[in-house]
């Protein structure tokens, strides 16, 4: 870690009071505190400043208050003083955190954390406060205001009505965002703590949403339009998702236009992955995992009462890029020309079992040109429709012209 920025900031601070402090020495002290003693960098900065203040008998140097600014002007790594309204409180997963949630002012919104050690007064939802000397840091691209023991908190009275700006989904950035969007899909929850997940869309794009289990959290109704104020925008592997636990959810009347989100991709099917064909799924409600050959579910163990399913996992390749595709039952049945019942019969009456279905699938579609249309989720296309591309003799003439005629 580089301490020179912090050290320079401290030495400038001291210099402003008419004393000299060597930034190199300061950086050394900071490093020692942070690396040897595990002090958080923000605290280390305070400690060093306090030490210098004592050395030069200065007052008012102790804590760098940071300038007072609007929430949209905060920068990671700095100290800041802000006046803002608590617009959301979220339950905190860790005992080290007393409170967490979202602060907003007329310029924007930011997440905040109050450390348990800060001994801060309990903040109330909907109230305005002045926070002096809080620290701004950054995690996965989103800013977070840390309220620590050095932060001075004072309730203030304001009657400004905050109207958060609605952001088009395509323009969301990590942090806090407000969108007006329609619930276009509801997905199976993939985690015990998850209450609901699905896909939101507006005219500009689509984004995944998650609501975690928490008292009083209601599910969104698919097909309904909502204004979602102060949702937490998280980034994971380059993809955004909206955590709605912090959000104020307002159902809206009427409908809005949304983009379909579907894309098409044409290419040759160059690989059919294991796990394609006739598969067995775990029958336990909400599980649906694929069972191994021995009907073993990684969570629910042996499940003789499995459910059959049909699918194709593979790679579609246009010579420039390769796309991971997942074709589900109905589309697969139509593409391969084999119904699930036929596949079951084939598997049950054949020594190779479900492998025979896999081999038939491979014979019928591997190496063929396909065009697939569907939605891309986590860089895999969930195929909604799929067709075999046929040879079109009309394309020859244009290519002959491109090749330049007979030399």
């Amino acid at each position, binding site marked *: 870690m580089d301490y020179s920025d912090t050290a320079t900031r401290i030495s400038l601070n001291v210099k402003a009071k008419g004393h000299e402090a060597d930034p190199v020495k300061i950086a050394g002290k900071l490093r020692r505190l942070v690396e040897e003693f595990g002090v958080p960098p923000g605290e280390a900065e305070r400690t060093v400043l306090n030490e210098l203040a004592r050395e030069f008998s200065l007052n008012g140097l102790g804590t760098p208050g940071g300038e007072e600014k609007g929430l949209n002007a905060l920068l990671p790594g700095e100290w800041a003083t802000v006046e803002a309204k608590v617009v959301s409180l979220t339950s905190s997963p860790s005992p080290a955190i007393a409170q967490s949630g979202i602060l907003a002012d007329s310029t924007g919104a930011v997440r905040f954390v109050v450390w348990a050690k800060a001994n801060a007064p309990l903040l109330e939802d909907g109230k305005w406060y002045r926070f002096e000397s809080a620290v701004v840091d950054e995690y996965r691209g989103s800013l977070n205001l840390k309220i620590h023991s050095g932060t001075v908190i004072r309730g203030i009275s304001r009657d400004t009505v905050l109207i958060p700006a609605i952001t088009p989904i395509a323009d969301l950035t990590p942090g806090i965002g407000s969108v007006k969007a329609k619930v276009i899909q509801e997905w199976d929850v993939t985690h015990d703590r998850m209450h609901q997940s699905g896909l939101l869309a507006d005219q500009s794009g689509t984004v995944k949403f998650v609501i975690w289990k928490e008292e009083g959290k209601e599910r969104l109704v698919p097909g309904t339009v909502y204004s979602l104020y102060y949702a937490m925008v998280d980034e994971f*592997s380059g993809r955004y998702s909206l955590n709605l636990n912090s959000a104020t959810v307002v159902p809206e009347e009427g409908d809005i236009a949304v983009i379909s989100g579907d894309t098409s991709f044409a290419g040759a099917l160059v690989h059919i992955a294991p796990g394609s064909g006739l598969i067995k799924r775990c029958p336990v409600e909400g599980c649906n995992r694929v069972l191994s050959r021995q009907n073993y579910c990684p969570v629910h163990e042996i499940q003789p009462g499995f459910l059959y399913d049909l699918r194709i996992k593979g*790679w579609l390749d246009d*010579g420039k890029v390769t796309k991971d595709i997942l074709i589900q039952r109905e589309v697969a049945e139509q593409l391969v020309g084999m119904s699930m019942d036929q596949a079951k019969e084939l598997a049950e009456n054949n020594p190779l079992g479900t492998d025979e279905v896999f081999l038939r699938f491979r014979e019928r579609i591997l190496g063929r040109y396909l065009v697939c249309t569907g939605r891309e989720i986590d860089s895999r296309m969930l195929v909604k429709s799929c067709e075999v591309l046929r*040879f079109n003799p009309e394309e020859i003439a244009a290519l002959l012209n491109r*090749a330049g005629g*007979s030399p």
Partner: protein
Amino acid sequence: MMASPAKGGFFRRDFEREPARRVFAGELRESRIHFREGDDEKSPTYVLLPTGERCNRVFLVGTLTEKKKQGDQNLFYRARVIDPSGTFFIMAGSYQPEAMQQIARIEPPAFVAVVGKPNVYETPDGAALVSVRCESVTAVDKDTRDRWVLDCAKATLDRIDSLGTTPDGQRAVQEYQTDPALFRKLVYEALSQLSL
């Protein structure tokens, strides 16, 4: 020049699969340059095509005309696949059991779609031979073959049009002294056979 992993990436999905290039036998046959990207034993190897594109994997469709089983302990198949411009030499050994079984089941002559990795070998007399180690070999119909010829013609013309504008393209011009007219002619002749 390793591609840097995507931001925040630590999942397998950030691994980008090498696309299967479309190349006519007449062009693949002319390839001499093969190289490894990176120092690791598992780093991908590439064949540099004369029209200026690196290629780790190919997708080809043609007529399987001959196949030959070789070896005792380590069985492997060699086979010839013909396209309108020449012959591809393909092989599948015990490390490609699925492709080997597929070849075993197909009786020549038959149209086949092949996905595989090209390799350049030196023959004892100093000539170079390009052979494709198969990942899969599937019997297909004539329609798929004809569509591949169009696809391959388009891909080859795209490469010729951008020859010399990319680092690989510049390298190809330097190493092979590629004459674009020659490859345009190859494409033209391949397409002409379709219209017959």
